[in-house]
């Protein structure tokens, strides 16, 4: 309850700040959407040359992509750790965060909320609706609750991975280059993993489980039997990775060294 209240308060302040820099708000939203559009067009271009990709039809791939956009948008909005090391460790803003009576990681999330990213989630839903209709998928009673649960699980996976990786900056003096690398790898998860070779499939499933934020949960709605068990595993993977992330973080905070005087 306390944290929800804080969230509302921070969002209110975000809006106030952003309304003073309106142009900035729209530019950010549009650039986000353009980025997604380019990826989307990429899929369309591929399917101009072939009818199926590793056994997946165009509409299926697009549906997976649409599903991926939902957790990705939520993650981008609420869990924004981009530039953490620069801002909080190098400049020492972590000092301030640590002297306030709310969990430090949560405060950092709140201070960096980025609502324009949610536009991606909205578009993802539209994409799923359209491609779902093209595929003739039916809306069962469990579809919406399952979608909610799996989206939240996917966000938990993202949060866990990025929190764990970001907490590395507590251990290492220099900002690491591993985060940009991750941002590249994560884009593999938005396409059906079966199109990749075996090693990458294992990597995306068990090591850095980006397949669980896109193709596996989406497969449940596409009624792909071979991935059903994987889809049902998503919440568990989410819980495990979130726990790893939080543990790594809490342990890292103890090693925080502060900056300057």
């Amino acid at each position, binding site marked *: 309850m*306390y944290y929800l*209240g*804080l969230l509302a*308060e*921070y969002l209110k*302040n975000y809006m*106030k*700040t952003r309304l*003073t820099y309106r142009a900035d708000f729209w530019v950010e939203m549009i650039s986000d959407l353009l980025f997604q559009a380019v990826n989307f067009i990429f899929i369309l271009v591929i399917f101009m040359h072939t009818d199926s990709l590793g056994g997946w039809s165009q509409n299926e791939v697009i549906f997976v992509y649409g599903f991926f956009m939902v957790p990705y948008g939520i993650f981008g909005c609420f869990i924004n750790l981009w530039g953490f090391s620069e801002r909080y460790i190098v400049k*020492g*803003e*972590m*000092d*301030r965060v*640590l*002297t*306030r*009576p*709310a*969990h430090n990681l949560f405060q950092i999330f709140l201070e960096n909320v980025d609502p324009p990213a949610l536009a991606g989630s909205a578009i993802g839903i539209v994409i799923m609706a359209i491609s779902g209709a093209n595929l003739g998928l039916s809306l069962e009673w469990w579809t919406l609750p399952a979608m909610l649960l799996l989206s939240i699980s996917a966000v938990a996976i993202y949060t866990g991975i990025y929190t764990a990786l970001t907490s590395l900056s507590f251990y290492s*003096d220099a900002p690491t280059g591993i985060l940009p690398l991750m941002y590249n790898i994560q884009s593999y998860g938005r396409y059906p993993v079966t199109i990749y070779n075996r090693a990458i499939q294992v990597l995306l499933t068990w090591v850095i489980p980006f397949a669980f934020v896109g193709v596996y949960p989406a497969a449940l709605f596409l009624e792909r039997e071979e991935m059903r068990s994987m889809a049902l595993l998503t919440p568990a993977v989410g819980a495990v990775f979130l726990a790893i992330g939080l543990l790594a973080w809490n342990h890292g905070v*103890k*090693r*925080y*060294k*502060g900056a*300057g*005087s």
Partner: protein
Amino acid sequence: MNAIEVRDLRKTFKVQKNREGLKGAFADLFKRQYSEVTAVKDISFTIPEGEICGYIGENGAGKSTTIKMLTGILVPTSGIVNVGGYVPHAERERFVQEIGVVFGQRSQLWWDIGVIESFQLLRKVYRVPEQDFKRRLDELVERLALQDLLNRPVRKLSLGQRMRCELVAALLHNPAILFLDEPTIGLDIVVKSEIREFLRDMNREHGTTILLTTHDLQDIEALCSRVIMLDDGRIIYDGGLEELKQRWGTGVEVQFQFGTPTKLPQLQQWSADMPVNWTAENELNAKVWIPRELNVSDLLAKVVGKADITDIKIIETNTDDIVRSIYQSGSAEKPAGLLQAEKEAIHV
């Protein structure tokens, strides 16, 4: 009841050594060398409730590191810390509810929103009930004359205005203990004395315990009954300010200006029965050092009738000089001999 208790507190940082040159940089890439730097070396002190304590020392003496351990930001390498009944780093979220923190070089406030909105946000963060918040805010705003600033964004405030707002932000939840890290840094004289007066009132009215670090010794003189002096991670002095002055301000210097040339041996002869130390720049100017135990007027009585004096200056060593010489010698134990004081001249 002690507000702050520290025993054998130590903090060691592992610092990466950078080897020289491009070759060194490559070597560092594969095998890093670390050295340990102990910023705070087994210090112990206690601060009773309601005390204002100054924490001074040169840059890099370990002041900020100590404050950061006391506020729960850093985890100590070893030793015991207890602040307001909490172990700061272990129970951080509950503990920080009870303290206020102002870091002079860093802002608590949100840059782009109005000051009052920052306060509202902090109210939510600290879970201060609306009623208490209103009363407290009104009191603080009036006390620090912030009425006109409340709706301005923080980035448009001057440093002095911002610092007053920072104080309000740190005190909204009515903390029992206040930590101030260089609260008057970069402020003009008027704002400085406003802030000092405010802190004194806070301490008197609410019994707030205050620990402040500063480089401005006038802060200390105006506020603190006690100083802790740190050098190279160790406490070199802990006690009253008056005591420090007495121990270190070893005497008084008197400067004479004569109308007619007066020779040094002559002066020494006049005061032959007193253990004073004369120096003369020329025949018209002379200085005498009088130890604390002696009476200045006794010496004056010996000289005034005999010489043709045009001016007398009595110079007492002030805290700045005392502290400077302590920093230079690195220990508060042995007096550094004659202090060359130039300030606080009293014309007779």
